[in-house]
């Protein structure tokens, strides 16, 4: 039964990936001029004809998609076309992807590490001054866009106090401190909004959970508040939080363009922007396909994890 459920979920997710990538490939067919003309604006008619055939644009929408998909699953994400040659999209992504992954992971870790205790504490102290202070501060923070936080950080931490570099990304190979030094401000900028939203989500779920009969039972049995909060209330209250976190993971990989631009970390978001502004449609299709895979993958992971965190969720879904 469970295996069938997970297979069904996987199939659904594959359908999502198919719809996204096929939709993208159709967009290429809908462009009023030949994509080869766009990709090779100064190329000769022969070069364009060769490119059209090479990409598979002469095979019709379905034929083109099948060709693209076949190459995509083999790790060939197509090329970025220049006036004098080309470059594999995969080589660009090999640089950009780790940057976005680290940015996403650190952001999530920081956001969850702060939001979970805050949410639990806020729910525990619901209605009291601590809860009101936390709620109001978070409400204020959630209304500040990440780029504004980034600019304030740059101005204070980078320019005025000169504590951290304001630009560039450094890999681990440059030294762990160098790596983190360059990641702190982008991560904090992205985390603030997430901390606010995660805390509020968790707080709401925790408040509802703390009103459940089994919590009253646990308290009447003399269990400590800490044990009740963390062992009995937090687990079932965290499903919404982790679902939200999973959705944000996909978003952070491809959607942190503003922060990437401010701090010059240049990850996948910038590659999406570059593909759009440079009309590199093949590259765009592959990058969007890849991002959609991450979206559905993270959602699948959370679905599976949610079943273990709160088995009622899984059972409800299986029986539905």
């Amino acid at each position, binding site marked *: 039964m469970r295996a069938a459920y997970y297979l069904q979920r996987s199939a659904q997710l594959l359908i999502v990936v198919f719809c996204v990538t096929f939709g993208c490939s159709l967009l290429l067919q809908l462009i009023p001029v030949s994509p080869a003309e*766009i990709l090779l*604006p*100064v*190329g*000769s*008619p022969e070069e364009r004809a060769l490119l059209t055939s090479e990409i598979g644009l002469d095979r019709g929408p379905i034929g083109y998609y099948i060709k693209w998909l076949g190459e995509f699953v083999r790790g060939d994400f197509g090329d970025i076309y*220049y*006036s*004098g*040659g*080309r*470059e594999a999209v995969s080589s*660009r992504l090999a*640089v950009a992807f780790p940057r976005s992954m680290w940015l996403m992971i650190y952001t999530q870790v920081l956001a969850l590490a702060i939001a979970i205790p805050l949410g639990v504490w806020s729910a525990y102290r619901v209605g009291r001054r601590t809860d009101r202070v936390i709620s109001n501060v978070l409400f204020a923070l959630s209304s500040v866009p990440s780029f504004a936080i980034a*600019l304030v950080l*740059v*101005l204070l931490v*980078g*320019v005025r106090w*000169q504590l*951290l*570099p*304001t*630009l*560039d990304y450094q890999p681990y190979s440059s030294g762990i401190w160098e790596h983190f030094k360059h990641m702190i401000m982008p991560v904090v900028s992205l985390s603030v909004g997430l901390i606010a939203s995660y805390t509020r989500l968790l707080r709401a779920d925790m408040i509802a959970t703390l009103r459940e009969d089994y919590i009253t039972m646990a308290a009447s049995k003399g269990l400590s508040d800490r044990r009740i909060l963390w062992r009995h209330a937090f687990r079932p209250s965290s499903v919404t939080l982790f679902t939200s976190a999973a959705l944000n993971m996909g978003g952070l990989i491809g959607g942190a363009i503003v922060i990437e*631009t*401010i*701090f*010059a970390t*240049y990850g996948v978001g*910038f590659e999406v922007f*570059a593909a*759009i*502004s*440079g*009309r590199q449609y093949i590259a765009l299709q592959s990058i969007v396909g890849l991002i959609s895979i991450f979206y559905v993958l993270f959602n699948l992971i959370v679905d599976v994890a949610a079943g273990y965190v709160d088995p009622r969720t899984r059972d409800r879904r299986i029986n539905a």
Partner: protein
Amino acid sequence: MKHLFRGGRRKVAAVMAVALVASLSQVAPTSAAETPKTGGTLSVGIFDSFPGYCMADNLANSSLMAGRTIYETWVEQRVDGKIVPYVLSAVENSTDFKQWKLTVRPGVLFHDGTPVNADALVTNLQALRGALTLLGKAPSPGTAGGFTANITEVIKVSDSAVQVNLYRPQVDFLETLYASGRFFVRAPSQILGGAKCSTTPIGTGPFKLVSTKLNELVVTKNASYWRKDPSGASLPYLDGITFTFLVETASRVSGLKSKSLDIAMFTSAGEVKQIRDLQKNKNMTVIESPEEYYPSIWLNNRIAPFSSKNARLAVSYAIDRVDYNKVRNRDYVSAAKSIVGPANIMYNEKGFIQYDLKKAKDAAAAYKTETGKDLEFSFPYTAGSTESLANATQIQKYMTAAGIKMNLLPLTTAEIIQRAFPQQFQAMALLLMEGAGTAFIAPFITSDTSGGNQTHILRKTPLAVLYGILNLSAFTDTVSEDLIWQAKAEPNAAKRKALYGKATQQIQTEARLTTISYQKYALAYRTNVKGVGELGLTQGGQRKLMTNFGIDFTGVWKSGK
């Protein structure tokens, strides 16, 4: 009171003295007392991305500065505007200026270890003019095919010399060979390297490629670089440079102030506030280029409404250049009085249409009488760029005042460029023309850069479009075109200037295009950056300290850690 007045004068004198010293230090910074130090790396923030390095990949402004650390040019421009041999060692011309013998400097190596010789020069010139493209050996020359269309033959005459034959006499052929710093000395292995031409730059410059992406170029010292400093020490001094594309001005400014960057480049187009802010910062030196860059409003003479002179006149009269310059440029640069600036040989105020609202309305009314339609046109701007939108909106305001309807067209930069060069827009703003000479002016205001050569190699090919593709106003004006070719053939400098001036007057009178204000560039660097503008050229004289492609990094060094 008298005392105060005297004191005031002293203060004024002191302030003026400080200002004079400060301004001189910005014009010609010097660290002559210090011995250049070898080693260290620099981080440079730029405002252009890297579209590639092949013939058709036009590196723009600040990314051109970065590209020029890898590449050099056959000739170089001195501060007085004269073009002198650089990777070439000598240039000779026939008395009719139709044959040019170019001799290559011995001992210069490309980064791949191959020598720069006559074969390399032939490969470069043939690639630029499209001859190798026709043979299927090299990628498209792009707009370079139009720039070099006056060349009819490139003949190797010895292992180190090449003769270039021209269709029309051209006194300033070396300006064409320089192309405002854009015609690089590329290794034949790059040009003929197929798919890697755009992504693997191989030049002769002081630095060589480490890695390149759309947003970044990392270069390292070329240990076998051919130039030495005046004391005989190896050049360059720096171990490496990282150029990072930072589209946000604020990122470049904060990068400098936080020491994440050592150098950053700016443009007067929308970044005046930041340039002025940096000029006040005691930890920075800010140098500026001359106002030798001339953004144009191109009016497409081939299609309605600007196929009508009345329409062109209406728009040209409607633009309040002084107001625009105050509002958009904060008076940092000059409002235009000619389609090119005073430093250019073609500068002529005669015939230039200045702001006159009444005449604008009259011309718009005349257009309606002529065509039965209200004057209306579309004008593209860069989507997502607040500066571009603000500039377009400001122009739209003037048009509205004159009763002209201007529709704003938000497009990506790529779309704008793609549609600009087949001349598909009714009107557009774009900076193309620059410099003191005409190599980067004439191709944009002539309809046939081959000079009417019916046997030119591209004539019967699809690449023939390149002859006129650079003229975004898409006009054919035989009067101005003849004057330009006559000027190019005229050895007497005064007569040449007069002929160019007449051509400018003709274009301005016909309102083929117009200009609102001129543009310049600025480069700010931290106090640990030394040697900027100090290294002279091999044949004597100095380069221009600062241009649209920034500075030369060959003699730059870094003090401290």
